[in-house]
């Protein structure tokens, strides 16, 4: 697992979903919630969304753009994209290993 991602604690799951959402392009809070629900089925509540956004921003993995009225879009940074790639590669490794073992044992 990439360094620091697990430091997000309970926000590591929501953090990964937000980074994945922003990989498509900049989005504001509500658009992130809708996108995450669409591609993962996870209904993220505002407290969790902003708890995770705060921590991702503190680590420099996302950055805020100038606000549009009350909405402020966020975009993925270079460091954020690297962390996301590492995290997805790690998860991909876990998925492939699990699938191979299931196929071998025939469980």
């Amino acid at each position: 697992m990439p360094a620091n991602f697990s430091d997000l604690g309970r926000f590591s799951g929501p953090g990964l979903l937000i980074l994945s959402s922003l990989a498509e392009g900049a989005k504001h809070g509500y658009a992130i919630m809708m996108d995450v629900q669409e591609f993962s089925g996870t209904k993220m509540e505002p407290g969790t969304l902003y708890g995770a956004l705060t921590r991702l921003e503190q680590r420099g993995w996302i950055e805020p753009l100038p606000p549009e009225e009350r909405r402020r879009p966020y975009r993925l940074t270079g460091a954020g994209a690297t962390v996301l790639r590492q995290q997805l590669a790690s998860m991909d490794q876990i998925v492939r290993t699990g699938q191979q073992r299931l196929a071998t044992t025939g469980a």
Partner: protein
Amino acid sequence: MQIASLLRYYPPAWRERYEDEVMDVLSQHRVSFSTWFDLARGAVDAHLDPSFAGKMSPSARQLRRSEIIVFCSFIAFVVAGIGFQKMTEGADKAGLMQAHLAIGLGYYAVIAGAVIALLAIVAGALPIAMVMLRQALAAGRRDVLALLAVPPALLVAVVAYGALAVHPSNSGISASVRGLIAFFIFSAAASAAAVSLAATRSELNDVVLRLAQWPARVATAAMGLSLVGVVVWGISLNSAAPSFFTLDGGSMTSYAYFTWLRVVVVMVLATVIAVAALWRTPRGETPSPMETATR
């Protein structure tokens, strides 16, 4: 209660940065029980996040914490002191105080300590309370204003309870008097908690907090004086009139010995906690009142 009102419980620095955005999200979001729970949990997370600790310096936070502890210790001391005052009532004890120097000295040490501690707490707490009130009014912090309203509201309730439920004709310790004592103790604890919470939600500057360190030290020393007075009074009275401690002369229908012991234990705990809180504050930077006045 609107869901957005929960945002008031987030740290001011967090609100300044994210409140508008979250309000916008909430205006489009379908609010459920999970949303309430999630936002409340988010407030706790934000308070635990040091980056939203606000503009107060670490030393100011330490000073605020120590002064809150001294204030709460003083309130506990006052409650115990009222128990002591109840013990000293009666013409026979007044006669003993006149006849035995140590009993009289102990009693007057308690009174002197109590008066000094009260004046010191008022001197230290009043400027802080004024700053908190002014900030809360300016920022529309209804939560802080509501917390600051708790002590006067409970004082009115205690007085009203006393006037309506306790009849002067009642002799001895009636159920209504016991109820009043219990309500008074509850009110004192609730008032101390409310004021402490209001202080933790306010941004207090170093100057006002450092200025309050001197009254806090004086109040703690005065609490120590009162404690010594209570101990001297009790030991001397036990030597002069041992029967007093074996009779049913204490508060809440208990023996006087147990009442005195309870008073001493609470006072010792309160004083030790206040001393420990002051001991842990940064020293060597606190200006004396004179120095502060000349700045």
